[in-house]
Structure formats: structure tokens, C-alpha cells
């Protein structure tokens, strides 16, 4: 465990080398939030749509924008890089679990994003646009738990893509497709409660909602305490399912492994 935490620390400190990026990210977050705020203010105005007020949507947008920076989908581009450079050989000769190594390495990046972009962005957005407090204390703790689910599910989906890349030798198209699915079905831009009923029921069956809609809706209290159990049970179900899938894919993928460049 200690050794995996070291990879987290290592990834964190590696990111420090790209400090100038922080300002750009802060600006990017601000602009993204600003656009969404303006859209929702224009759409909802002073009243409410489907029982949702503009302030709620602003908080929803802030949470989703900042959460996006913490997700671990990026794992697929890391694996892709290792596959293309052949560096995967050096990773596989170490006595480590490859997925755990990737997970903890990714967590280091997320931690960095949390400290240097998400937290300051939250402060800025709070000052400029205002952010609602969590619905109840229970909802706040459930929100924290939902963040953990979001990280795990995003990691598993990213890892799944990187394993599929063993067959295609390129993850770009797959990541692109995954990006599309996430943008739509995570509800990060358009919350699932605004979806037409048939699409909403599809979105609520998929794992993507845990990477956007679920944490934000919990925070706002739009998921009731009784529904929470159901949502979490399904999230854990998805994690178990994805775990089984990636384990199985790994045993197949490793046979296809080609180490580039001798």
C-alpha cells in the first residue's frame, strides 16, 4: 500500500513541473462555468423549469465542471503512451499490480487538480456566481461518497478503454467515443432531470451518471434519502461488474501485448 501511495505522491510532484498550466486551467474553468451560468440564467430566469431554479443549476454546473477535472479517464492515454513507446515493458517487470499502479498514479494527478485548480476555482466561482450549501448534512456525506464512486467508475471506464486499445493499438477513437457518452449520459452539461423520460430511463441505467449527475444531484438534495441507497447499490453494482470485465479483458489483452521498439 505504501508503495502505491508513493506513486500517488510521485504523480503529484510531477505535475508541479507544469505549474504555468494552473492559470490556464483556472481561466478555463471560470469561462466554462460562466457560459453555463449565463445559459441557465437566460433559460430559467427568475422562475423555475421542472421545479429547478437558476441557483440550483449554477451550483450543479460548478460541481460538474470541477468534478470533471478530478476524474480518472485520463488513464487510457497513459496506457496508450506506454504501449506506443514500449515503456509498458518496464512497468510489467515490477512486482506491482498494473491497474493499482495506474489508479494510484491517476489519484496523484487528481489530488493535484483538487489542490491547485478545483479548490481555487470553487472559491472563485463561489464569489462570482454564488453556490448553494448542501441540502442536508446526510446529503453532504453522501456527496463525498458519491465523489469516490465517481473516481472509481471513471478509472474503470478509462482502464477498460485502455485494455480495448490492446486490440486497436490506438485509444483515440475509443476515448473520443467514451468522451461523447460521458458528456451526454453523465448529465454533466444537461442534468438527467431535463431529459425526455425515455432517455432519462436509459441514462439512469448506465454508469456514466455517477461521473456527474449523481454527485451534483445528491449535493442539491434532488435525490431523496430513500433513493440514495438504491443509487449507491447500483453504483457499487457497476463497479463490481466493471471489475470483472476488466479482469477478464486483461487476461485476454496481455496475450495480444506487443512491445514496440524491441
Amino acid at each position, binding site marked *: 500500500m*505504501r*508503495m502505491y501511495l*508513493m506513486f500517488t505522491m*510521485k504523480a503529484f510532484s*510531477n505535475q508541479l*513541473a507544469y505549474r504555468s498550466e494552473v492559470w490556464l486551467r483556472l481561466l478555463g474553468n471560470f469561462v466554462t462555468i460562466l457560459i453555463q451560468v449565463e445559459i441557465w440564467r437566460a433559460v430559467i430566469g427568475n422562475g423555475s423549469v421542472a421545479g429547478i431554479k437558476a441557483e440550483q443549476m449554477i451550483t450543479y454546473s460548478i460541481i460538474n465542471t470541477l468534478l470533471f477535472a478530478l476524474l480518472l479517464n485520463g488513464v487510457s492515454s497513459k496506457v496508450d503512451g506506454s504501449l506506443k513507446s*514500449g*515503456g*509498458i*515493458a*518496464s512497468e*510489467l*517487470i*515490477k*512486482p*506491482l*499490480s498494473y491497474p493499482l499502479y495506474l489508479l494510484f498514479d491517476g489519484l496523484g494527478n487528481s489530488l493535484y487538480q483538487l489542490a491547485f485548480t478545483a479548490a481555487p476555482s470553487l472559491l472563485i466561482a463561489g464569489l462570482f456566481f454564488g453556490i448553494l450549501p448542501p441540502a442536508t448534512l446526510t446529503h453532504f456525506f453522501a456527496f463525498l461518497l458519491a465523489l469516490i464512486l465517481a473516481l472509481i467508475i471513471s478509472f474503470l471506464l478509462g482502464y477498460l478503454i485502455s485494455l480495448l486499445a490492446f486490440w486497436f493499438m490506438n485509444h483515440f477513437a475509443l476515448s473520443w467515443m467514451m468522451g461523447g457518452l460521458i458528456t451526454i449520459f453523465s448529465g454533466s452539461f444537461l442534468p438527467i432531470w431535463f431529459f425526455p423520460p425515455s432517455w432519462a430511463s436509459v441514462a439512469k441505467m448506465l454508469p456514466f451518471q455517477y461521473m456527474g449527475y449523481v454527485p451534483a444531484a445528491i449535493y442539491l438534495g434532488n435525490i431523496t434519502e430513500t433513493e440514495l441507497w438504491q443509487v449507491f447499490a447500483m453504483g457499487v453494482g457497476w463497479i463490481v461488474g466493471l471489475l470483472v470485465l476488466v479482469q477478464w479483458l486483461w487476461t485476454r489483452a*496481455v*496475450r495480444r*501485448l*506487443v*512491445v514496440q*521498439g*524491441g
Partner: protein
Amino acid sequence: MDIISVNDITKTYRQYRRFPGLIGSVRSLFTREYIEETAVRNLSFSIKEGEAVGYLGPNGAGKSTMIKMMTGILVPTVGELRVLGSVPHQARKDNSRQIGVVFGQRSQLWWDLPVKDSFDLHKYIYKIPPITFEKNLEFCVELLAIKDFIQKPVRQLSLGQRMRVEIAMALLHEPKILFLDEPTIGLDVIAKDQIRQFLRTVNRDKRVTIVLTTHDMKDIEEICPRMIVVNKGSVVYDGSVVELRNRLGNERQVVIDFREEPGLIDMPGITLLQEEGLRRTYSFAKSDASVFDLVSRIAAKYPVEDASIESADIDSVIRRLYQQLAEADLKRQIG
């Protein structure tokens, strides 16, 4: 006991067929045709504990693939492979604690960190007890002369320095087997010597089994009593270096300087290799008459100024072996 046993191993890579040109690349999108490339073909050998084995062959002979299968990175397509009693890719994590791997063309160090930090990370990853770690570190640092640059970041090291660090790191967890894939590639003579000496010490004194691929025959001569030569994925020679030299190196080269143009020299058992003014290089079959006899017979008949006898070096022995293999291939293709 065999520490490595390779039994009829084959590894094929499947590659979808590509068609040249722009239209071809569109066509490649729809094809399901693929080419099976065999990197390793029905390979068998075994290595005992404490051996030092040179694994060599021309480029593309499947050496790296074999090393990667033995280290558990790649999975053989067919056949049985056991390293330290287990199947490498299945027991990858357990085996990796007991083997050390050095890839000459691929660094395992942390690029931005000082050398010492890379060593410390290694200590955690391999869960090396502090006393063992300190002891091994001291041993490697001293014999490989790493002390001067142990605080420098890896990216600032010269290739020779980096290679020494790579080898040191591969040994910190006291592996039973050390795999080296072209460890001396691109190094200068002094760095090569240092590494060879060190590896010999590690093999003789610490009883670490060594499997080494290289293109530098001196590596083999100085470190490995045994060599396995592969070509096109199959073993073509497995035995001692001395034996191979006897088998293929039973020719001697003689350089003769003549006083004046001798004309055609007709003598059984000699072949002209090179002609350079009055200097001729001949190869002599070592069979019946001794080389010395032949030279003196030439000297009696022709105006010889000077002659020197050279034994074929291991490089030319290997060159001859590869040439024979290439010729055999050509014959097979024609016939």
C-alpha cells in the same frame, strides 16, 4: 535444477495486412486478412542455477521476445515455459521479485529523480529489508563506481553512467536471475569493461544466474561460458564458446608479405581471402598439416618476406555462423 526451462515455445504476432498507398489505406480498414509473424519458433533450452548464458543471434532473431517471455511480459503462443518453477506471465508479480531485468534500450529509472531516489523507490517497490538494501547498495555503488553521480538526476547522466545505475538497480533486491537485453549497446570500451567485470563478479561470487543478449562477442567471451545462438526463432547452436570456436574457427588466417609478385600459389588446403599489393591473406584449414608446415612449404617455393598466423577471433566465428545460416536459407528458398 533447471532455473529456466523452455519447452517447444512459439510466439507469433498477428498483424492485419496493410495495403500501400492512399487507396490501400482505405482498403486496410476493411480487410480481415492478417499476417502471422513468428518471432520464436519451437524453441527449447534449459538453464541451470548459477549459469551465465549468452543469448545471441542476428537482428530480428527473436531474442528480445524470448527475454520478454521469460520475464513474464509477453505470453507465449504455444509451449511450456517455466522460470523459477512457475509460468512467468501467470506468476509475474511473484517472479518479478526474484528476477532482475535490464533493457539496454529502455530505462527503468525515474527520469527526473536523483539516482539515490530511484534506488529508494526501488527499495519500497520490492520491499527490500533495510539491511539487505544497504549492503547491496554498497556493493553495487563501489564496484560500479556510482558514488560520484549518485545525487545527480538520471537525465543528466551519460549513457555509460546510466547503464551502470540500471544494472545496480536490477540487483538491489538480490534476484536469482538477471536478464540483460543488450546491456553494453552504445557504450565506450571502458564502460563495457567495467560492466563485464561486474557481471562476472555477480555471477561467480553471488551465484546469480545471468541470461544476456548482445551483439558484442566480447561480452559473451568474458561473461558467459555458454552460448545459445538463435536464428529466425530457432536454436542453431547451444554449447560452450570454446566448442563453437573449434567447430567453426578451425581455420586460421595467415598474412604473408612477399618480396616480389609470387603469381598464383598452388597449394592444397589454402584459400586466398585478400590481395593487397604484395600482401596476401589466406585462410588455412587446420585439418591435416599444421599451419606452420604449410607456411614453411610456401616459404621454400616462393619469395616470402614475412608471415603472421592469426587465430580466427570469436567475431569472425560468429560471422561465419550467420553467413552459413543465410546461405542455408537461400538454398532452402531456391530448392
